Every structure is written in structure tokens, then in C-alpha cells.
């Protein structure tokens, strides 16, 4: 199993991923959130999720949206795949990270 496959396997098993793995999560945001929000996060079927578009949300709200999704929309709950710490890392990354 190569390193990337191992990282993906760890993402899928939150109990094993104690410390958020920044590189793996950044990749997840770009590639897999990017399926709907675009590789540059400026939107696609899902909305723009760059810092400017999200600035009126608190990190806690974003973390909840990531973990539980938004019922009635295509935004799925990521709780089966991510720990709360990982969702928190992603919320912070979206609000304050080095995104375009």
C-alpha cells in the first residue's frame, strides 16, 4: 500500500486518525470537496467556499455543516468519514487557509 492509499485509508477510519493530517485533509478539500465546489473552491454544483464567501460563518457552524451536511441539498454528512477534529481543521482551513 503506498503512502497516499494509506492516508486515504486513515481518513476513512477516524478512530485511527488522532491528529489531523494537514496534507491529507488539504488534498481531501481540493479533490473531494472539489468534486462539487470546484478544485479552486470557487463553486460548481455546490457554492463558492473560498474565505470571502464564508466569512460570515463561525468555525463552529462550518464544522457542523461538514459533519452533518445540509438536509435537502446535495451537501452530504461527512461524519462517517471525518472526526470532529478533522472537520474543525477543515473549517479553519476554509476560513483562514491559503485558499485562492
Amino acid at each position, binding site marked *: 500500500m*503506498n503512502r*497516499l*492509499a494509506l492516508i*486515504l485509508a486513515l*481518513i*476513512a477510519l477516524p478512530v485511527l486518525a488522532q491528529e489531523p493530517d494537514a496534507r491529507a485533509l488539504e*488534498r481531501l478539500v481540493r*479533490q*473531494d470537496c*472539489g*468534486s*462539487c465546489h*470546484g*478544485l*479552486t473552491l*470557487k*463553486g*460548481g*454544483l455546490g457554492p463558492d467556499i473560498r474565505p470571502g464567501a464564508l466569512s460570515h460563518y463561525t468555525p463552529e457552524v462550518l464544522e457542523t455543516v461538514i459533519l452533518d*451536511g445540509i438536509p435537502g441539498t*446535495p451537501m*452530504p*454528512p*461527512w461524519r*462517517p*468519514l471525518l472526526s470532529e477534529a478533522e472537520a474543525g481543521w477543515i473549517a479553519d482551513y476554509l476560513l483562514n487557509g491559503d485558499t485562492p
Partner: protein
Amino acid sequence: MALFALAAPFAHAQATGDLGLVVERASGSLLVVDQSDRARIGRIEGLGDLSHASLVYSPDERFAYVFGRDGGLTKVDIIAQSIVGRVMQAGNSIGGAISDDGEYVAVSNYEPGGVRIFDSETLEMVADIPSGGKTIGLVDVPGTRFVFSLWDKGETWIADMSGGEAEVTRIEGIGSNPYDALVTGDGRTYIAGLFGEDHLTALDLWQDSPAPRQILPGYAEGREGLPVYKMPHLEGWALAGQDFVLPAMGQHEVLWVDARSLKETGRTATYGQPVFAMARPDGRHVWVNFAHPRNDTIQVIDSVTKQVIHQFSPGPGVLHMEFTPRGHEVWLSVRDAGKVMVYDTQTFEKLREIEAESPSGIFFTARAHRTGL
């Protein structure tokens, strides 16, 4: 010297019938590949944001029209391996199609929502069809027409370009949130997948006034819908024998539908939520890949028994499959391994790995001669 100049074009002549392009989604480039040599023979750069990019070919298999996520429409010459035209036609787009006569290229846009149609020679816009929302499932059908659907409004629109201007027919009542659509190779049956309802909707485009018809009603009834981490793709639709094979939304399952009656003929449980369910060109087998986090695996289903006959894991992030025109080999893009992998479809033996940067869509030139891709 004059003789040399005259002979030079012939010395460099390159047939295009077994060439193809591979989208390198993160770096905004295309690999030019040779299908029979199983090799990359060049790279074309400078195409912008190619996440979720797709492309279509001119009838002579020389030019490709590439639809980038950033709204860029780029015309490339596959022989010269260069960009010959590029327009930023919208803010955010999601695929396109080329008309049966090769005259028009249509692009489906999220922002601003609608479809724009361009002269394939010059890339000048010849029609602008705003829809007030995101458009999906854009295909070409005979009669120099394009068909597409509206995510927000649940409508399907037909744009007839045979008179040189867009004459639009609207069909309401397709259903809630169509996310993608397919058209059969004869251009007759258009099927929209719905995110918001537990069925799909078909239109018979041979009718003067096509009316929406529900197919597979209640296919997930009584079962909990799983979180959808990636929308299925219908444009890689499969006609296997007499059946369509369709990915089920929110289920680990593909659905079989009789192509004429549109009645369900079976279901096959799969390893994950299917993204593409693609029939080998002869229809004997169906190859299926899956949504995150099960996107490292492929299953092959026998279209007679509807049983999974082979499963393997090419690597992390198997995004796309493209068969050689007669189906003896299949090329897979394995995004996170940075490779395109070529397999024998009879023995399932891996024949070659080709280095590529985050590869996604693979498109062979034979697509130039097929309706609805």
C-alpha cells in the same frame, strides 16, 4: 530546398484515428496519447482550470474542444499539439457537446446559468440561451439539436440550431434537481437522473412533443439513502445487450433497465456507490468505478448474468475509464497514483502504466463519430 518544403508536410503526416487526450486536471494540461502504442506522445499546456473538464472532437478528428471548469473553451489541434483558439465564455462551466454537422459547439454553464453556442471554426458565439440557473446533462442529438436540463427548475430544453439560430423548446416536469443526463446512441431516449426524487425521468425525442416519463419509480424505497460524496455520471451510459445500466443514487447498486420498455430488469449490488457504469463497446461486460472513499476499486459485471465477475484495485482515485473503440483494452486514470493504466479487457492483465499529473478524463478520437458524448 523547395522540394524538401513540399515533402515536409507528408513526412510529418499523422493519422488521428488512434490518438486521444488525457485531462491533467490540476495542471491545466492535456496529454496527447497514442492508443495502439499505449504511449504518451506530447503535452498541451495552458488550458486553465481543468477540474471536471471534458472535451469533444471535430468530425475530422483533428480538433478537440475542451470545456474547463473556469468557463474557458479551448480549441486544440491534436496533430500540431497546440492551442489554436481559446475564449473565456462564462464564469463556471460544466461540459459541452458538438452538433452532428460539426458546425456548433455548445457549453453548459453554472455561472451565468445557461447554454452558449459557438461557431466551431472561429469560436465566435452564435447563440446565448440563459436559463436562470445551473444547466446539466448537455448532449447533441440528430437534427443539429442540443438537449440539456435545468438543475433548479427541473426542466429539459431542446435547442434546435438547424436554422442557424437557437429555437428553444421547453419541457417542464422533469423532476426535482436533475444532476446529469444521457442520450442513447440513436438520439431517441434522453434520461435525466434526479437528485431530489426516487426515480429517473425519460423523454422520447422522436415524439413531436416529448412528455416526461418516470422510470425506475421508487428504486430506493424503504432503504436509507447513503451520503453522496460524488454525483454519479450518466454520460458514460452503458447499453449492455438490450439493457441500460444506470448507477443508483445513494445506494451501492447498479440498475438494469430494458432499453425499449424502460422497465427494470435487475439490480446488481456493488462495492460502493457507482460513479460511472460503462459498457464495453460490445456490451458484454460493464465496468464500474465508485465514489469517495471507495474510489480505488473497479468491478466488472457480466451483462448476461448481471453478476460481478472481477474486482481489483488499480490504485487511489480511479476517476475515469475509456475503452478502445472495439473494446479490447481499457484505459483508467488513477488520479492519486499519477498514472494512466491500460488493461486487457479479456484477461484483466495490466499492460502498461503511463505517467500523468492528476489524470481525470480520457477521450479517444473515436468519440468524434458517436452521438451524445
